[in-house]
């Protein structure tokens, strides 16, 4: 019994059907963790990106080093670090938040890169022309750069959301009850790992297909030349 639902081990078919609602509860947690982690990644990534593009090298170089460090170290280790080290310094977070934070930090390294690439892809000439027209920098950013950068940034970010979803099972090591840990618990108790794990695989395929389709839809709907401003 898990989440108050018990399973039926009479036959393989009945077993599969009876654990489905349990796995779906886990799926819900997976989606929640993904979204929270994604939001953290978007925010932290923005902060990192602006630090990295700061003109003072004392600011930009440490930021770049930090980004590289986050990129090149495993999520699992970062998660353990947060989970065990933070309480030693008085910060006690629920496991779910620790997990989402770890996801957010790991992926902020990637999102900061997306922001940087997206901004740089707006041709230099446009910015120079805008300056020549004496437009104030704030306006240049909002009206010229941002509308053109956004259609390029969003599809890349969408892909990272899908990646985050695939990394959520790592959170199982700190007892976050996402899909994989639920399946493993069922397997530990019934000794039938095959059905729960295979179903999780299937559910993941469905999840990533839906999410990727959503990302692709956004990609198609966003005009490549930039958001139109009337």
């Amino acid at each position, binding site marked *: 019994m898990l989440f108050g639902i018990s399973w039926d081990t009479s036959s393989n078919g009945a077993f599969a059907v009876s654990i489905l609602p349990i796995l779906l509860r886990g799926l819900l947690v997976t989606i929640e963790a993904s979204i929270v982690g994604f939001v953290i990644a978007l925010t932290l990534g923005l902060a990192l990106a602006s630090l990295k593009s700061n003109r003072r090298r004392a600011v930009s170089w440490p930021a770049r080093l930090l980004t590289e460090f986050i990129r090149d170290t495993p999520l699992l280790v970062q998660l353990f670090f947060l989970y065990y080290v933070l309480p*030693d310094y008085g910060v006690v977070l629920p496991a779910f938040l620790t997990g989402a934070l770890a996801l957010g930090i790991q992926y902020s390294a990637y999102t900061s890169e997306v922001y940087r690439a997206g901004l740089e892809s707006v041709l230099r000439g446009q910015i120079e022309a805008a300056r020549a027209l004496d437009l104030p920098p704030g306006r240049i950013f909002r009206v010229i750069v941002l509308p053109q950068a956004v259609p390029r940034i969003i599809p890349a970010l969408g892909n990272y959301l899908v990646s985050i979803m*695939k990394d959520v099972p790592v959170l199982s090591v700190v007892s976050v009850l996402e899909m994989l840990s639920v399946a493993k618990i069922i397997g530990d108790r019934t000794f039938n790992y095959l059905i729960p794990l295979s179903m999780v695989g299937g559910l993941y395929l469905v999840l990533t297909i839906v999410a990727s389709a959503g990302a692709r839809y956004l990609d198609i709907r966003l005009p490549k030349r930039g958001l139109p401003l009337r």
Partner: protein
Amino acid sequence: MDWLSYSEPLLEGAWITAQIAVMSTLVGAVASFALGMGRLARNRALSMFCIAVIELFRGTSLLVQLFWLYFALPVFGQILGLDLRLPPVMAGVLALGLNIGAYGAEVVRGAIQAVPRSQHEAAKALDFTPRQIMWRIALPQAIPEMMPSFSNLAVQNLKDTALVSLIGLGDMAFRAEQIRNFTQDSTTVYTLLLFMYFGMALVLMALMKTMERAVGRWRATARI
């Protein structure tokens, strides 16, 4: 803060990590080319099979794949009457290799398809067979294109090796967790561990850069 005494078990774990990384990268490289080129094959059954494998491993979580190979496959074997219990090393290398191979397959496919059609035509005019064209003309031109992405995938694979600690393999992450359990000195151990992974990643990136330059020698000679 006894990090000197931690380094011995951690270094032992690092040796395991390195071995797993090397083996899974090799499996991944072979899988990338096999799946990537198989996807381009004219035989429909083969290309569909490759697409299925690629989408399966790209669309599901690596940890799920690892657990499936280690926990579920034996059960599957029981049904078939076969002993399909994989030792942790094998399950780990296989899961990591196939996972990274599926991503690599798309890199291989893209790079091969990026070789200009005119090259194929020139080769055909010289009466090369399609197989000769692939191996002598297309692939050598595609490989330098693949290297930057392969470099990223190699580092990703190194990071992913940490997951094998979850099926009991004594790699760096496993040892670190053991030490932490014993000493409760989380900060030192995990900081040390993070830097060790970072160091290994830097070495790996330098290695990949060297390879990149080696395979792309003919491109570097362009005159302006």
